[in-house]
């Protein structure tokens, strides 16, 4: 079965957070940034410096990676975390979750959060195979693509860069001769 994954390009992200507001609206029924299941981590150097001290402005993406060997599922005392075979997502069974936060503590990415009102954890479950975040990303920074294609974007970029270097080197060597 085709396995699709979320991939993110920080150089394309415009930092508008529509992925997060769409996520919380779809999954929680209200709009918020804190209840979003994915988080865009902002580095806002530009806003914090004087005119002579420059710093970058860039955004990063943190959400559940849907690990093949998922630690969260291993540490869950009630076996509330199970893989959805159709989407490949690790999904929380809300009837079983006792809110112990073991998964939250052990997730290596900090991708699991706690909902104080519901007293349960929440995480990205890929919206049953149709991630809303991707639908609302207008800058094409977030994509939901087959896992085989996940490295392609970066690979093509690397190759293009290397090729440019090779061509330049070849040209200068030719000219040198």
């Amino acid at each position: 079965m085709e396995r699709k994954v979320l991939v993110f390009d920080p150089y394309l992200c415009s930092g508008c957070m529509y992925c997060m507001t769409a996520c919380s609206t779809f999954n929680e029924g209200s709009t918020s940034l804190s209840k979003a299941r994915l988080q865009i981590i902002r580095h806002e150097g530009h806003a914090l410096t004087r005119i002579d001290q420059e710093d970058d402005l860039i955004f990063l993406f943190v959400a559940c990676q849907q690990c093949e060997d998922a630690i969260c599922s291993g540490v869950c005392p009630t076996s509330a975390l199970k893989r959805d075979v159709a989407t490949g997502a690790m999904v929380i069974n809300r009837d079983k979750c006792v809110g112990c936060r073991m998964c939250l503590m052990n997730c290596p990415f900090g991708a699991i959060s706690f909902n104080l009102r519901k007293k349960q954890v929440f995480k990205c479950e890929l919206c049953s195979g149709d991630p809303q975040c991707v639908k609302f990303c207008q800058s094409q920074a977030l994509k939901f693509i087959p896992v085989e294609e996940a490295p392609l974007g970066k690979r093509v970029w690397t190759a293009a860069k290397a090729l440019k270097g090779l061509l330049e080197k070849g040209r200068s060597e030719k000219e040198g001769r």
Partner: protein
Amino acid sequence: MDIPRGYAGSVTVIDLTEQKAQIQPTDIFFREYGIDPRLWLGGDGVITKILWKDFPEPIDPLGPENEIIISTGPWTATAAPQAGRAMLGCIDTKTGGFGSGSFGWFFPSILKYSGVDVLIIRGKAQKPTYVFIDNGKVVFKDASHIWGKETGETVRMIRKELEEHYDGEIRVLSTSVAGEHLVKYSPPCSDGTSCPGRSGAGAVMGSKNLKAIAVRGTGEISLYDPSGLLESSSRAVKTFIEKEPMIKLWREQGATTSLGTAMDWPISGAMLVENRQEADFPHLKNVGCLNCPNPCYHWLQIKDGKYSGLRHLGGHMTFLTVCLRNLGIQDFSEWIYYERLMQELGLDPASFSMAYSWAVDCFERGILTLDDTDGITLKRGDSEIICEVARKIAYREGKLGNLLADGVAEASQKIGKGSEAIAPHVKGKEYIQRDVKIQALMWSLGALTSPRGGDWLRHHNVWELVFLPEKKDTYPKFIGKTCVEVYQESLKLLDMPDELKKNIFGDSQKMDMEWIRDTKGKALFSVWTENLVALFNSLVTCMFGSATMFLMVGFGPTTYSEILNKITGWNTTYEELMKVGDRVFNLQRLFNYRLKGWDYRNDTFGDKRAYEPAQIGIFKGKVVPWDEVLKEYYSIRGWSERGLPTKEKLRELQIEDLANGLEL
């Protein structure tokens, strides 16, 4: 008065004199102020109502009785597109009348997530203070050590002091040195990024000893129909991106798309386009406010030259156009440095550039001498002199700094000698161009009728500019279309009843260039546009996505009502929402009349050149018939010949009780 979904739920009123804060449920506050949310929405609508109740008499805008009012709206911080905006209102420091400005980045949404619909700040602190709103709870903090710091450093110090866990957890709206020195056109700045400009709110903050407002908010906004909201928003954004003729250019190049295209200034348009193509534009990517499908900020980096290494988030139209046209700065790096400097010092780039430009004119005519300018030879095009003068103004240094810090209207009154005749302002506020006639008619009409004095942002209809016949080689060629094609496409998509389109554009609706050079239909289109602007400023959402603004056929009232209904559960219509805009605009007019006595006599340009035949542009060789156009405008608005709303008009807008005791 029931408050529907989509509102955060409370109103915070802060008294700096007493160092006290009062937090009220929104419905109780709205009842006290007679605000029916469906009639006034939020943003400018709510600000106008608050100003109306709190200021029946004129005040000193820089006295403690002035207020800072930040109002979000039902649109803000929801999953609707472009939900990152709020309005900031006060009594305008330049005109003494109605003042407000739109701003974005993330302060407005985080304020709403902290539970606040409206924030009002009154009084004056005894010593420099900043206010921290932590998920609704208000804390007063000493700001003595931050006083005198520029924007970026202020933001950094406050965020560090409040120990934010991650970038952007705490949002800061601050005033800078120009605000502290009461420069009358100083705006505050939110996170060194977005400024509610044009009404001098930065100086109002300075006069209150209020350095900044910081906010942390992790709450949520409840919605009437979340999945419906997502569906409508997704459809609206998709249509926008697919159909809007300008969007592709915009998404590649951001707000500066407009340089050689939509906002092609007749005076130097061609040069701009060529420059734009040839310059190695140091653009890294576009960045936007909350939920923005067409982000306007450029993340810029200067690669070489004097400012090598400078990074800046900006690249906005106003800066570049005023830089080129008023200051004569041609170099892109210098322009970017100028924009950054304006933000750091807290100066309004439009008002500053007009003040500087006017001073150059006076200097060249001998009205200002070297003695008046503290020995500086004023001229255009030299960015070093310009930046030096900007710093002098921000710190009110010397004769020149003090003179220009009050803006052209006051400065020209002070020095006289014929300088008033070349002072470009309406009702005491500078407008953006040195000579209005070279601009299009609707644009200039907007400056005359704007509730905050000489201003272009309460109108900003670009239809004449985009379709200027001489521009057919510039704008459409970028998208591989002809001018006629784009015009017809846009006309079809424009969210306006057919009857109205007919009355504005004529029967044939074909590409009729004479329409652009004529006055026919312009007043009607202006009224529609002003109502639309007042509407999206009350929702609150962004002008860059709205019809007839930069993108010509962006979101219109149909989209607004569809999405607003999903947020609130109301059943508003196109007509109802346009009436909200009409109501807000009319009350602003009435407010200015009650406070300042402004009527038709004040709808005039301070600059005498506006009444002479134009040498270039749409009205080349002609005197623009301002009086005729204004007369038509008043009658379309349902105003009397004095330019004031009639009782019937106010009844139609359900605000006739507000006119009690007023002589209309």
